[in-house]
């Protein structure tokens, strides 16, 4: 793999995992708000 290939791999792991982590917190907040009857 080329140097840019390794760089792209590292950035995909970073931004991809960060998106999933932040997204999971956002979904858990939304679901908990709904379950206690609070509006968004």
């Amino acid at each position, binding site marked *: *793999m080329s*140097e*840019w290939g*390794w*760089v792209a*791999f*590292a*950035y995909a*792991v*970073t*931004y991809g*995992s*960060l998106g999933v*982590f*932040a997204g999971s*917190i*956002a979904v*858990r*907040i939304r679901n*908990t*708000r709904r*379950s*206690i009857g*609070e*509006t*968004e």
Partner: protein
Amino acid sequence: MQAQTRNRQWPWVAIGLSLAVAFTLSMVSPADSVQGDLVRIMYVHVPAAWLAYLAFFVTFVGSVGYLTTKDLRWDRIAAASAEIGVYFTGLAIALGMIWAKPTWGVWWTWDARLTLTAIMFFVYLGYLALRRTTDDPVIRAGRSSVLGVLGALQIPLVHFSVVWWRTLHQPPSLVRPDGPAIQDPLMLTALIVGVLAFTIVYGSLMVKRIELIKLDDQKAAIEQSIERPVAGEAVTVPDLGASS
């Protein structure tokens, strides 16, 4: 209502903006004379490692705060920070492996820095697991605060491992007695901005994670206050004909 929604959304906006700036700078900075373009991995690996230290230090502060005051708000801070710290430690390890393969020729080596970071990762995974062993918030806070204090002893051990032992891992890039190891101003700026951007990401995630813990506490309080049928709503008491 719209203003309230806007107030809740600012952490996501802060995360997006700070990462966009850090990404742009890391791409426009020059290639390294030795590592070539691979040096760009440093702009995400070093901030992720820094965030792991910061997050576990905040867990330490929250744990000490709880043990001294018995106020559960300190425990919320410690718990939120530990979860984010575990994520960033895992990310730092993964990025280190991706960087190691093309530069060292191996994905992993039992180097002091790598091994101690892996141990720290598993200790804080244990912290999160320990929190799930009981539903009682006071018992949970007491147990996890002790581990939160003891676990923080690893932070200086991990950071100075590259100084105290002869390791394959390079010495610290920024925090050094003789100043930063990076001489190129644009590369240094990209690294510092990366660290600041990831710190903003950490702060924003903390705000949302603490918000989630508060909501979970509200939900638990509501569930406790509702009188529920012991066998569940689907089960009815059988009519045995006692009334006839």
